[in-house]
């Protein structure tokens, strides 16, 4: 049994640099991004999440939607336990696998194979899987002999193939995915979608931030619509997506 429980969770990012005098108002609300406010005389902070309460249990596949800067990535990082909320509290139960920033595990100086070994260490992939891992990744990425060359010789799409294959080598109970499939070609996207489906069947909870409706309908059964760090609407995927699209005027 896995769960993710958030009670009145808020996240404020303190800003220590930047010219604070140039902020036009002490309390500003831009059309995108979180709320910028003055914490005290000298410090400015950005409220990225504002009083979020949510309970996710086994079987929940939640799509996160909202415009840029609505707090989707921050919420995923809170769910991953990477940021502890500055207000409210959170209970995480289950092995969390964050698929947030694919580039973070790749070292460009190393070859593909060396990166596979390196990632197996970083992602704490159990020893029994490590032996078959390289083979699995060869099959998935179609990179062939390129795996023996340094990653800096790869194109952006090739790097994406490798990092996606590495990140999805984990065996997650709770899977958190930020929009990560930007530069892949159609062949890769098809494979990635298949992998995601297979992957999401193994997981008990998934949270996916995406702007791709097709992907959301296919992989999610619920959706949370975020705006200015608040949950505007949470419920079945069709309902929330329809309301979101209506508000965007499309």
């Amino acid at each position, binding site marked *: *049994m896995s*769960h993710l*429980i958030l*009670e009145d969770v808020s996240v404020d*990012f*303190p800003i*220590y640099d930047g010219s604070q005098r140039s902020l036009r108002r002490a309390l500003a609300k831009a059309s995108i991004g979180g709320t910028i406010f003055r914490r005290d005389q000298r410090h400015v902070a950005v409220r990225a999440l504002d009083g979020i309460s949510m309970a996710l*249990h086994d079987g929940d596949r939640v799509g996160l939607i909202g415009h840029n800067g609505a707090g989707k990535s921050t919420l995923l*990082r809170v769910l*991953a*336990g*990477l*940021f*502890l909320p*500055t207000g409210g*509290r*959170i*209970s995480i*139960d289950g092995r*969390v696998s*964050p698929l*947030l*920033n694919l*580039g*973070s*595990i790749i*070292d460009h*100086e*190393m070859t593909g194979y060396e990166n596979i070994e*390196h990632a197996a*260490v*970083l*992602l*704490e992939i159990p020893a029994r899987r490590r032996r078959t891992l390289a083979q699995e990744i060869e099959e998935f990425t179609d990179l062939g002999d390129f795996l023996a060359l340094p990653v800096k010789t790869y194109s952006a799409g090739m790097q994406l193939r490798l990092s996606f294959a590495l990140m999805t080598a984990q065996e997650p109970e709770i899977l958190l995915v930020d929009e990560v499939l930007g530069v892949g070609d159609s062949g890769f996207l098809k494979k990635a979608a298949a992998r995601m489906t297979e992957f999401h069947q193994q997981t008990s909870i998934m949270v996916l931030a995406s702007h791709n409706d097709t992907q959301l309908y296919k992989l999610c059964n619920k959706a949370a619509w975020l705006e200015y760090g608040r949950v505007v609407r949470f419920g079945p995927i069709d309902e929330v997506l329809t309301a979101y699209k209506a508000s965007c005027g499309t």
Partner: protein
Amino acid sequence: MSFQKNFKHPFLLAHHDFFKGIRSWSLWFGLGIHDIRIRYKRTLLGPLWITASQAATFICMGMLFSAVLKNDVTDYLPYLAAGMVIWSFVSAVANESAQIFTSAHHVITSLRIPLVVHVLRFVFRHLLVFFHNFAAAVAAFLILGGHLTAASSFLLVSVPLLFIMMSSAALIVAVVGARFRDIAPVIGIVMQLTFFMTPIMWRTSDIPNASKWWVTINPWHHVIEVVRAPMLGTMPAPLSVEVLLFGTLVLVALAYVMFCSFRHRIAYWL
């Protein structure tokens, strides 16, 4: 509902992170070796470059300063070599540890790795460099007619102790340095001055008796002495061993408290 909510206090979470990080030794061990391999990739000598550059420095300085200070070179050079090798470990860790969390920024905000691992990986990497330099210094000592003795085996105690002490110190500096960016330059200045104030290029016996208290109250002198003496085949003074032991205990305790109190803020400071 059949599930149990477990809202954990930040201090408790940090406590788990602290010990989980230390226990994942294969992680920081592997990453430390990895860092060295990457750094010397495509070079002819590989990590032996570290040894070569350190040896070149202490041979030249040893010959120069034995002439300046009118010391016997066969006696002075191994002393200088051992001192410099230990000092480069200590000062490299001190100088760079303020940036540990800042430079691991991408990993910290995207992978669930205990934060302590970043610190141990960093100190272990420098320990590996130290071992390369250490080999050069011991070689110089043996070539110039020195002999390793039973006292040399004390290194098996003093080097691990030094590693624990510097890891704790690095953790403290890393936490403070993530929040206050002025720490790194301040440490740089302090360490530069400390190098001249500590008996590394000179010996305690070179200065007048009236000034010797200055060396006795310098903790860095004791830290270096505990490793340097067995490298030269002698036992360190009991006082020096006590200072290192006590310093390690205090720093470990302080590092634990600091880390557990501020662990939950570190990601926000980056």
